C-alpha cells in the first residue's frame, strides 16, 4: 500500500508520482498538514488505462461515493469526487487487492481538499439539493438544514487530516481492519484515532454553536 505518513522524509525517488489529491487529480505531491498523502505508483504513458478499471469501478463506486458524501454532505459533489478519484486510479498501478482502501482514502482526501478550498460547496449547497431529496417544502427548514451541514463541514475541515480521514472511513462503513490497512495504521490504533476525531469534531461543533 502506498499510503505514507509524512513527518519523515521518504526519498522522493521512492514515490515518483506521489499524489496529494489536490482536487484536480494533478500529479503533484504536497506535504499534508500533519496528515497523510497518498502516492500513486505511476503507470506507463498517457492514456494507458488499467484493464481492471471497470471491474474495480463496479465494485467500489458506491463505497467511494459514500465516503466523499460523508465529507461533503451532498451527493452530487460526491459523485464528481468519485470520478476524479477513479480517473487517477485508472492510470495508476495500485495493486487490485489494495484498490478499495486506496480509493476510499483518495476519496476522503479529495473531498477534504474540496472542503478546504471551498470549491463547489457553497454554490452547490445553495442550489439546495443533495441529489437524494426532492424539493424541500419548507424554505425555513431548508435553510436550517443547509446551515447545519455547513457547520459540520467547517468543523471537519479543521480536524487534523489523518483524524478526519479515519473518521470518515469508519463512518462510511469500513471495518477497523480496512481502515487500518488503508491508512497504514495498526488495527489497535484505529479506535484511538477515531475516538480522538469524534471528540474533536464534537468540540468544534460546540465551539461553532456557541460562537454563532
Amino acid at each position, binding site marked *: 500500500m502506498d499510503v505514507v505518513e509524512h513527518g519523515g522524509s521518504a526519498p522522493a525517488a521512492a514515490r515518483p508520482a506521489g499524489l496529494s489529491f489536490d482536487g484536480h487529480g494533478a500529479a503533484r505531491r504536497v506535504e499534508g498538514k500533519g496528515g497523510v498523502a497518498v502516492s500513486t505508483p505511476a503507470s506507463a504513458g498517457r492514456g494507458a488505462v488499467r484493464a481492471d478499471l471497470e471491474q474495480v469501478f463496479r465494485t467500489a463506486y458506491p463505497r467511494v461515493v459514500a465516503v466523499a458524501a460523508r465529507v461533503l454532505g451532498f451527493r452530487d459533489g460526491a459523485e464528481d469526487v468519485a470520478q476524479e478519484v477513479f480517473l487517477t486510479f485508472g492510470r495508476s498501478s495500485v495493486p487490485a487487492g489494495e484498490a478499495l482502501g486506496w480509493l476510499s482514502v483518495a476519496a476522503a482526501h479529495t473531498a477534504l481538499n474540496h472542503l478546504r478550498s471551498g470549491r463547489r460547496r457553497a454554490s452547490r449547497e445553495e442550489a439546495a439539493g443533495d441529489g437524494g431529496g426532492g424539493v424541500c417544502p419548507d424554505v425555513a427548514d431548508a435553510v436550517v438544514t443547509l446551515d447545519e451541514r455547513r457547520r459540520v463541514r467547517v468543523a471537519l475541515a479543521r480536524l487534523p487530516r489523518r483524524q478526519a480521514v479515519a473518521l470518515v472511513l469508519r463512518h462510511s462503513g469500513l471495518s477497523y481492519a480496512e481502515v487500518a490497512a488503508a491508512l497504514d495504521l495498526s488495527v489497535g490504533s484505529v*479506535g484511538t484515532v477515531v475516538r480522538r476525531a469524534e471528540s474533536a469534531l464534537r468540540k468544534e461543533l460546540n465551539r461553532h454553536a456557541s460562537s454563532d
Partner: protein
Amino acid sequence: MRHPTDGVLRRLLDEPVGVADADREHVAGCPVCLSGLAAARKDAQVAGAALGSGLSTELADVDVGWWRLSGAVGGEGRRRGTTAAPAHRWRAALRSPVVAAFGVVALLAGAGAAAAVDWLQIFRTEQIAPVTVTEADLVALPDLSAYGEVEVSADTNAHEVANADAAKKATGLSVPRVSELPRGVTGAPTFQVGDQMSAVFTFSAAKAERAAAAAGETLPPPPAGLDGSKFRLVAGPGLAAVWSEGRGVPALVVARAVAPTAYSSGIPFQTARDYLLSLPGVPDGLASQLRGFSGDGTTLPLPLPAEQVRSSAADVGGRPATVLTSRDGTMVAVVWVDDGIVTAVAGTLSTGEVLSVARGLR
C-alpha cells in the same frame, strides 16, 4: 488491571468481538470505563448524525457513473450517450442539469407554432452549436423534473450487434466506414445500436412554483395554456462502431444517430420558451445564450462544461462541425449534423487524427 485505552472503548462500540475478553470483562465491571464508554458512544452518535445528515441512503448508480467515467477516460463523450448508454441511463440523464439545459431548449427552441390538435414538430436538429455552461450554471440550474413530469415512453434498448450490416438493419442508418484508422488503432470494431427514444414532458405550474419557493423566489405567473401542456422529445435510433484496443475504454468511436426532434401538443413555443427561460434558477447568461439559438428551431445547443471542455469550429465535408477537446487533452471529439443525422468521431487521439477520420468517413 489497568483501564483499556479510549481506542479500545471506541472499538467496543463497533466491533466488540475485536476486543480482548479481558478488556470486555474489565469494562463491564468498571464504573470509570463504563463512563468513558458512554462518552465515546455519545460522541460517535453525534459524529454519525453530523456526517450522515441529509444524505440520501440510495446507493450511487454504478451504470451512470461508469458511463461518465468511460467518457472521461476514453473520449466517449456524454453527448453520444444516446447510443451507448443502457436504457435507464436515459432516464437518469434527463435528471442531470446538462441534459435539462438541453431539454429546455430542445423542447422549446422551435419557432412559434400555430395551435395544433395533434403533436406538432417544433424542432428539428439541422446543426449543432456549443453553449458554454459553467459549473456555477450547472449548480444553479434546476432539473426538468422541477418544472413538471418527465415520462420516458421509449427507451434506447442499447445492445451490441454482430457487424455493420446488422447495425444498419437495426437502425436504418448507413454505417460510416473509416477509410484509414489512426496509428495505434487496429482491428475490427464492435457495433452498438440503440432504438429510438422518446420522452414526454408535461409542464406543471404547481411543481415549478414549489421549485421556485425552495429557491426563495416567486414564480412569475405562467402564460395561459402552459400548465399541463405536453412536449415530446424524440431522438435516435443510433449506432456506434467502437475500437477498444483491449484497454477497456474505447480508443476510437464513430457514432451516428437520428438527431433530436421535438413536438408539442399545441402551446405556442416562443411563449413557453421565453417563460421557462425566465424562471428563477436559470442563470441569466445561460438563458440568453440559449435564447439566441432558439429562433429557427434547427440548431441543437450542445451544453459544454466550460471547466472541462473547449470547443472550436471546423468543417467536415463542407458541413460546420464542432471540435471538443477535454482540458486535460486526453479526449477529442468532432460532431456534426447532416440532413437530420448527427455523426460523431471521438477518441483518445489528437485533433488532427479525429478530423482526419471524420473527413475520411465513407
